[in-house]
């Protein structure tokens, strides 16, 4: 496990990378604050199906069962890897920036690496603030930035036996990095 924990004034920041299943209950008290009116948790979990772009569908890449929808790929599991020290550094910077931008009281970002089965969490993000609207905005912003910049990658391992590393080409974020 790789981790970084900071207390910047009144803001608590916890960033961890795990190789084992994430335990959300163990993180529950990390957002606790007498000044918090809202705590929000987000779990990113492995999904069974992936929609294939219409221009990429071919008979050879159809589902794993006769008559199944060729525009949908079935995932067996995901595998994640990371440039660990850089990921910790980037996630910590994101968490601190989110805390400052959205007036957060606490931020938790935990990412799992290795094989992640269907339905299990690859990432847990938790934030607390005085008011709920800030928590909704902060979690969305953290996830957007994580997906753009943090050196973590997933490999789709399909039911067909094929696998592929996912390297999406995304549009550059605006200067503020806000969604």
């Amino acid at each position, binding site marked *: 496990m790789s981790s970084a924990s900071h207390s910047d004034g009144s803001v608590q920041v916890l960033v961890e990378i795990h190789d084992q299943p994430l335990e959300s209950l163990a993180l529950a008290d990390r957002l606790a604050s007498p000044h918090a009116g809202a705590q929000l948790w987000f779990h*990113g979990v492995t999904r069974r199906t992936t929609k294939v772009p219409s221009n990429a569908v071919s008979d050879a890449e159809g589902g794993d069962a006769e008559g199944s929808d060729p525009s949908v790929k079935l995932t067996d599991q995901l595998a*994640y*890897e*990371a*440039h660990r*020290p*850089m*990921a910790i*550094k*980037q996630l910590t910077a994101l968490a601190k920036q989110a805390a400052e931008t959205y007036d957060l009281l606490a931020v938790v970002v935990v*990412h799992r690496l290795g094989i992640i089965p269907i339905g299990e969490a*690859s*990432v847990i993000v938790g934030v607390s603030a005085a008011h709920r609207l800030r928590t909704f905005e902060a979690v969305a912003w953290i*996830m957007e930035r*994580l*997906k*753009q*910049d*943090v*050196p*973590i*990658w*997933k*490999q789709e391992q399909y039911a067909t036996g094929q696998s592929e*590393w*996912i*390297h*999406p*080409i*995304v549009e550059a974020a605006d200067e503020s990095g806000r969604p």
Partner: protein
Amino acid sequence: MSAATQRMVFRVDLFAGAKQLAGTDHVHVDVRVDAGVDEGCTASDVLTRLADQHPELAELIGSCRLAVDCEYVSNDCAVNPSSSLALIPPVSGG
């Protein structure tokens, strides 16, 4: 190699699709720079030489960023072999 040319060898760590294409988790890149060039070797030089010397990575490199000591750098950033370099393909965490 002339006396006015400086040779530098960089280790570049690889991940995900790049690691799969290269069949290894790191490669070495040989960069030769004119000794009189003030900026020495840049990130762009390393990426260009990386594509030349490891053609299996050439197609992916165009979409990659270079990280030096755990920070993304611009193409014109000067780099030296004592730093930790990593080729960062488009990320897909979360």
